[in-house]
Structures are given as structure tokens and as C-alpha cells.
């Protein structure tokens, strides 16, 4: 039975401040742990890079198996861009610029960002769940007892696979989107094919647009992979803990992608 004196204002305030302090401290502590973990992955990456077939295997699971969702989504996003873009552009009589609109939106923004969001929910969650379950079933402990470092053998290959896959998937997403825009704009609506492609070619700058898009998706790849492997490794070794960690991976990395996108965009296109 709680004591009556428990409910005085002073005690309530005291409890509130204690909880607030504990919450903040534990979050900062966790962030520090995540940063040390990030460093540790780099230090332990020798195996993943030397025995590259370990990483290639993970690229198959994270990258290749994400292809379907990335390609199909890219196609649909491009088709929507084709419809919406045409609707707006034709009011100003500039529907010839549809190719530019579709390609710039995709290469600069939608390609890296949407592909990253899809990648986080398709592959990031899978990585977290796999590592978390390996921990829950003592596979990571067993590996450690066999004198094999789980960060080197399990975490680093998955991390690098995510970092390598992300820019490639984003590029494929953009390519597929441009094809979708072409299908709708040129084949369905009847925008002039010549100006669709030639205006695109004239206005998309390799350094300013394409490379910046690749840099973005590379950064997103680092963020997603880092969050996914960390959440898995740090998961509480129970069914509930693993499911919570999987959810956190998707939520945290989605927010982090959008925030990082804003920062990167502000840095890259400051001349505008």
C-alpha cells in the first residue's frame, strides 16, 4: 500500500525529476555506447574486408533481396511524378521539361531518401532481428567462447554490406523512377520523346546532382547500418526485447534519414 505522504507535491516533483534525470542519463549513456560500438566496427573490419565473401553473402541478403521492393517502388514513384509533373507543367506550357523535373526530383531527393526509408524497413529491421535473435539464443556468446569476435564475424560484414548496397539501390531506384516517368509522360500522355531526354541530359549536372545524390545515399547507408547492427547487438535477449529493437531500428533510422537529408541538402545546395 502506498503511503499517504507519497502523494505530497514535493514527493511527486522529486519523483518526476528523478525519472527525468534517469531517462536523460540512460539515453546519453546509450548514445555514447553506440558511438564506441561504431568505432569498434571500424577497428574490427579487417576480417570483413579480408574475407570479402563474408560481406558478399550479406550483400546478397540485404541488397539483392531488397531489389524487388526498391525497383517496384521506384517505378511507381516515377509514374506518379510523371502524372503530377505533367499536370503542373502543362499549365505553364512547359510540359517538355517533364524529363528534367522527374530526373532532378529523383536523383537529388526521392531516390536517396525513399530508397533509404524502404531499405531501413526491409533490410535494417532484418539485420536487427537477426543479430538480436543470435544474441537471445546465445549464438554470440558461443562465438565469443570459440575465440571468434562477433563484432568482426557477424556485425562488421552486415554493416559494410548495408553501406555498399545503399547507394546502388538508390541509383537503381532513380533509374527505375525515370523509366516510370518516361512511360507515363512520353508513352501515355505523349510528351515529345526527344525533348524529354535531351532536356534531361542538358540540365542534370553530374557533379552537382548525381554525385551529391550518391553522397546522400552513402551517408544514409552508414546511418541505417549503424543503427540496425547496434540495436540488434544491444537488444535485450528476449522475444520482447528483439521486437522492440526491430521497431526502434525502423523508427530511429527513418527519423535520422530525414534529419540527415535536411542537413545534407542545406550543405550541398547552399548556392541556390
Amino acid at each position: 500500500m502506498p503511503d499517504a505522504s507519497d502523494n505530497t507535491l514535493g514527493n511527486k516533483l522529486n519523483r518526476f525529476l528523478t525519472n527525468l534525470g534517469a531517462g536523460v542519463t540512460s539515453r546519453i549513456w546509450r548514445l555514447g555506447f553506440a558511438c564506441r560500438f561504431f568505432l569498434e566496427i571500424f577497428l574490427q573490419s579487417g576480417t570483413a574486408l579480408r574475407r570479402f565473401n563474408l560481406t558478399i553473402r550479406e550483400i546478397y541478403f540485404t541488397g539483392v533481396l531488397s531489389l524487388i521492393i526498391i525497383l517496384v517502388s521506384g517505378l511507381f514513384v516515377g509514374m506518379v511524378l510523371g502524372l503530377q509533373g505533367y499536370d503542373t507543367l502543362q499549365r505553364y506550357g512547359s510540359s517538355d521539361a517533364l524529363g528534367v523535373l522527374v530526373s532532378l526530383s529523383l536523383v537529388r531527393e526521392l531516390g536517396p531518401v525513399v530508397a533509404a526509408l524502404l531499405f531501413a524497413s526491409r533490410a535494417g529491421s532484418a539485420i536487427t532481428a537477426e543479430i538480436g535473435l543470435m544474441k537471445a539464443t546465445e549464438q554470440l556468446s558461443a562465438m565469443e567462447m570459440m575465440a571468434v569476435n562477433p563484432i568482426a564475424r557477424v556485425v562488421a560484414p552486415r554493416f559494410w554490406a548495408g553501406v555498399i548496397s545503399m547507394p546502388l539501390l538508390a541509383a537503381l531506384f532513380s533509374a527505375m523512377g525515370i523509366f516510370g516517368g518516361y512511360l507515363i509522360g512520353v508513352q501515355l500522355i505523349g510528351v515529345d520523346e526527344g525533348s524529354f531526354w535531351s532536356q534531361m541530359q542538358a540540365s542534370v549536372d553530374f557533379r552537382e546532382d548525381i554525385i551529391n545524390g550518391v553522397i546522400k545515399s552513402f551517408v544514409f547507408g552508414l546511418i541505417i547500418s549503424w543503427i540496425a547492427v547496434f540495436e540488434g547487438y544491444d537488444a535485450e535477449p528476449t522475444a520482447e526485447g528483439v521486437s522492440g529493437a526491430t521497431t526502434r531500428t525502423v523508427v530511429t533510422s527513418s527519423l535520422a534519414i530525414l534529419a540527415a537529408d535536411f542537413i545534407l541538402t542545406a550543405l550541398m545546395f547552399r548556392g541556390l
Partner: protein
Amino acid sequence: MASASPTVDEPLVKLSDVNFAYGSRPILTGINMTIPRGKVVAIMGSSGCGKTTTLRLIGGQLRPISGEVQVNGQMVHALDSTGLYDLRRRMGMLFQFGALFTDMSVYDNVAFQMREHTDLPEPLIHDLVMMKLHSVGLRGAHDLMPSELSGGMARRVALARAVALDPMLIMYDEPFAGLDPISLSIIGELIRRLNDALGASSIIVTHDVQESLKIVDYVYFVSAGKIVAEGTAEEIKASKTPYVHQFIWGEADGPVPFQYPARSYGEEMMERISGRA
């Protein structure tokens, strides 16, 4: 670095005055234990008494707060990670539910350490893996995945994996938990046979009295983080210590109370009644 090379008479594992706690909750207090070479030693006690913690201290996964843990003449908790990994290459550990790598076949599980730690050619690894699997009777199951194995089979594969590099020390964490009687005696017999064939020493952490007393040379009884009794299997069976007696004969009440510590029930009832009035 390591002290002078150990002699044959020196015990393989020696714990002296080991204390361990999680935060402020003490788990082990004043543990003294020796594991002689070539013997099978059991650590028994009820769930949560600190048995598994003892194994983790010996394997270097945990560090004692005070006291010494020595394995083969080396102070485990004083080793750096390279030294610890070198030592672990000579230890095998069987985890409670096997802890097989679920993304690898039985064959690859057993071959795992050979591939990680040696440069042996693949044909030789094949022969070694088949030999290990044969010794646990599962050569025919080499291409199955862990999800296709029964609990007893998984335990046997894990056993083959634990002895893959012919360790000097094999540790078993609850090897008998959740097995049917046939699998139980198979595992028991394998533990003894592998220990003697490899010239290794074994530590079994278990609460399965009948099965382990059949195969072990010496028993330590742990209760609430302290060693309460020790002796050979015969001595333990004949023990008059109340705790050991209750444990061996599986009595529901005794020195280990049936009730989780609580206030007196009568007192609690009275309080509820007066609270309602």
C-alpha cells in the same frame, strides 16, 4: 604474461576466494574450487544459485570482484583480449540449448572453428568434421540445418562443435535440460567418453542429480552463491547435509523453502482487513 608452465599435478582450473556480484546483488561469495586434470566435475545447485556465473568466470566472460580464477596456470581475469582468445581456443563450451549457428548446416557448425582458427585444407577439415560427428553418432545428419534437428540431436551437434579443436577443458551449461530419458543417457555417456578419449577435463553445471552422479568424479554443491558441500558421487549420495539431502531426493520443502521470501501471510491479511474497515 603467463606464469611458469604448469605441471601435470597442478589442477587445470583453480578458483580461490572468488567473489562476484551484479551491481549490489552478490552472486558468488568466497568460492574455492579445483578441477583436476582428466576429471569430470559437476557443479550442482538449484536454478539461479550462481552455477552458470561460475562457468562464465572460468571462460573469462565475467571478471570476479575479488579472488583469483586460474586456468592452466594463467590468471584468466588478468589476460588481455588476445591472451583470452588464445586460452579460449583450448576451451570448449556447450551452451544450455546448444546455441548452434542457425544460418549454417550441421557440417558448417562443426567446421566453424577449424575454418576460423586454422589454415587446414578443406578435404582435411571434411575428415575431421566427419570424425567428430561420428563420435556423437550424427555423421549421417551432416547436411541438415539446426532447425531440422530434435533437441537431443542439436545438443549432440553442439557437443561435436565444442570438441572440434580437441580442447583441454570442456564446459557444459545444463547439458541435460529438457531432454528425453534416452537422449539424456546418450549425452551423459558422451560427456564421459569424450572427456576420457580427448584426455580433457570437464565441468558440468547441472541440476540433474541422477544423470550426473552416474558419470562424474567429483561434485560441488552451490547454494545462494556459496559452496555448501563437496565430495565424490558416493559421498554426496550418502550426505546428511540437509540441503544436499533435500536436493538429491527432490523434497519440496526443507532448507530450501517452498515460499519465496515474503512477509507473514497473516500479517498481510490483517492489514487488508483493517485497510478496508
